[in-house]
């Protein structure tokens, strides 16, 4: 397959996944802002979310205060913000258009229809009027695109590069999300001087925080199934980092990356495959205690660098002309 084609397929998938993850992130931030007495936390959480995409300075320059409406304008509608849903869906569609001959008609039409419908929904003002409904729509379109990919595409190289894009993007997004959410609860607890786990208010606060995190990754029901226990930060981290059966966990994403990388290997890609394999193996045998020894934030920072390194190596091995 053409290197340029592989590159477009990979980025088509990454941008599709990115739109979904952005929708999940903002949706949960907005929902939190609806909870009684949580205004400040919700705004802090929205700000944290912007920080996660390293966008806070640009946002402040454009909109000043962090409030739900401006965040929607910035993260959904802003054509200049490369991380907005507008940009992600636009880029996903442009990449799909560049390789429309290499993907199934159904997949192309889905990407094209998503873009056209998105413009229409924005015209009608849905993102601001009914953000919940809108973010649900973004997620559904991403599910649809993935479903059509799996349901209609022959499992050739094109399919593998799409999958690589999806899972590398998702691993990155999940890691950043966990990092921000843990940082957030630590600072909030410190500010509220609520450090005693036996304090009932502490437990309630923790519950809503982790419940929101789990829901934003469609993992709330899974948590209950796996642990049949109350919700704790440590278990949330374990589920979202190490559980190989959890579709959005980092371990599960890395397993997919390794499997797909194996199938597209060429003469140059051995080192990339080795590094991906090593990362997946580490995630498989690691325990939460070991992560804690490094400190979660430091460990995640290293992990994000490793994921980034894999992306760069894949470009070198396959995608760059």
């Amino acid at each position, binding site marked *: 397959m*053409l*290197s340029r084609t592989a590159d477009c397929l990979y980025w088509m998938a990454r941008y599709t996944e990115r739109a979904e993850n952005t929708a999940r992130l903002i949706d949960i931030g907005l929902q939190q802002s609806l909870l009684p007495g949580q205004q400040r936390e919700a705004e802090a959480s929205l700000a944290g979310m912007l920080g996660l995409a390293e966008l806070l300075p640009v946002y402040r320059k454009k909109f000043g205060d962090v409030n739900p409406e401006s965040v929607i304008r910035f993260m959904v509608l802003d054509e200049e913000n490369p991380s907005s849903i507008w940009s992600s869906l636009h880029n996903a569609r442009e990449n799909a258009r560049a390789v429309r001959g290499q993907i199934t008609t159904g997949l192309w039409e889905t990407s094209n229809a998503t873009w056209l419908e998105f413009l229409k929904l924005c015209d009608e003002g849905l993102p601001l009027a009914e953000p919940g409904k809108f973010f649900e729509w973004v997620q559904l379109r991403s599910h649809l695109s993935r479903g059509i990919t799996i349901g209609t595409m022959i499992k050739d190289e094109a399919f593998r590069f799409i999958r690589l894009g999806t899972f590398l993007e998702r691993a990155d997004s999940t890691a950043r999300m966990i990092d921000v959410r843990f940082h957030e609860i630590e600072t909030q607890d410190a500010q509220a001087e609520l450090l005693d786990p036996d304090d009932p208010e502490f437990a309630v606060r923790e519950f809503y925080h982790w419940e929101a995190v789990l829901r934003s990754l469609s993992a709330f029901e899974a948590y209950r199934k796996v642990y049949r226990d109350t919700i704790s930060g440590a278990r949330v981290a374990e589920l979202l980092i190490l559980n190989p059966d959890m579709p959005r966990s980092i371990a599960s994403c890395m397993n997919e990356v390794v499997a797909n990388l194996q199938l597209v290997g060429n003469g140059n890609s051995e080192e990339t495959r080795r590094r991906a394999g090593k990362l997946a193996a580490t995630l498989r045998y690691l325990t939460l205690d070991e992560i804690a020894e490094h400190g979660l934030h430091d460990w995640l920072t290293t992990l994000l660098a490793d994921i980034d390194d894999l992306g760069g190596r894949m470009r070198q091995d*396959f995608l760059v002309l």
Partner: protein
Amino acid sequence: MFDEMLLENGTVRPHYEGFERWKTARNSGFLEGKKAEADHLFRQVGITFSVYGDDVGTERLIPFDLVPRIIPASQWARLEKGLTQRVQALNLFLKDVYGRGDILRAGIIPANRVLSNAQFRKEMLELDVPAGIYAMIAGIDLVCVGENEWYVLEDNLRVPSGVSYMLENRKMMMRLFPDLFGAHRIAPVAHYPDLLLETLRQGAPDSLEDPMVVVLTPGLYNSAYFEHAFLAQQMGVELVEGRDLMVEDDTVYMHTTHGKKRVDVIYRRIDDDYLDPEVFNKDSMLGVPGLMRAYRAGRVTLANAIGTGVADDKSIYPYVPDMIRFYLGQEPILNNVPTHICSETDSLKYVLDNLDKLVVKEVHGAGGYGMLIGPAASRAEIEDFRAKLKAHPDAYIAQPTLSLSTCPTMVEKGIAPRHIDLRPFVLTSPSGVRMVPGGLTRVALKEGSLVVNSSQGGGTKDTWVAAD
């Protein structure tokens, strides 16, 4: 005015009776409803084109008309014979002018008209193309002006486009009106990509058994990008851009995820000028440096060959009937429109005296731009052209204004007659000349207009070759 559906007294011609019965049996507003459905589908499928001058990336729909254009099979049989004959002669002409030059020596066509033509590529002299086929893909524009009375308006031998609309229009009609197809015997067209692929494969250098065929596009923002992607997909070959290709040791390769792969046949949708910056336009970012070297070494086939423009040039057009006689020893089956070459003094005088009756076209023009339609033009436009003609007579030809046939077409106020033309796509391979029945029908949507080009508001229709 000749209407293809209705006789002058308003009765429906026999080959349209089935359609008329079907339409009459539907509620009023039925077609209008289907029209909205069709537009939505076209947009979703992304069957769009862009117009130069619009914002980059603006995509438009080509208006699609739901009333089919029907050609009786017996008429088509004659057209097919005529098209085959014409394209054979045009290919022989190209082989001749880039080879021995018999037709020039015989004085059939003035040599300077060919050799000093801007479309004549001296780089092609003494270069053998596989099987001597220069124009593997030709689009011949036909117009009908009366009962079974057809003219060739122009030959397109460089990168004729529009075939994807022919195919998508048929698909759309079958999706919208399946019952209509049950009631008629309409010749299928969907196998065109198969014929095209076979043609391209047979044109491979050194008769390779399993040649690598690619489609070369200028890219995403080219007006016909949809068609390039569509044809590549339908044939199951790679769609490449110039930057995906490279030339090494006079061999063309493409960059793939498994290193470089040899390319044998390039169906290029880029004009000659942009193909190879080493030889042609030096600033071209679209082409492939060294491509011409590989071509000259016989290591790659270009479809169409470089330099085919010399045969479809409007100043060469008047000689096509003589070419047919010269190369094939046959009388032309299809009529040529009588053409005045304005560089000839007598012709120029006649043209200047009759500007209000004639159509004047730029010799190198295309897309319906830069032409004067005398009977429809204002005084100022005519005077403007008079000045242009006097300044550059060799840049123009003139023809009588043909009364193009009309076909009922959906317009804002219901169904009304609009002028149409026909572009069949003719494929030539070592095993012969082939085409799918019919072609692309273009329709001038503006009342009275004779300009059918999509860049100027023309639309398209599904074209049926139906059993008589």
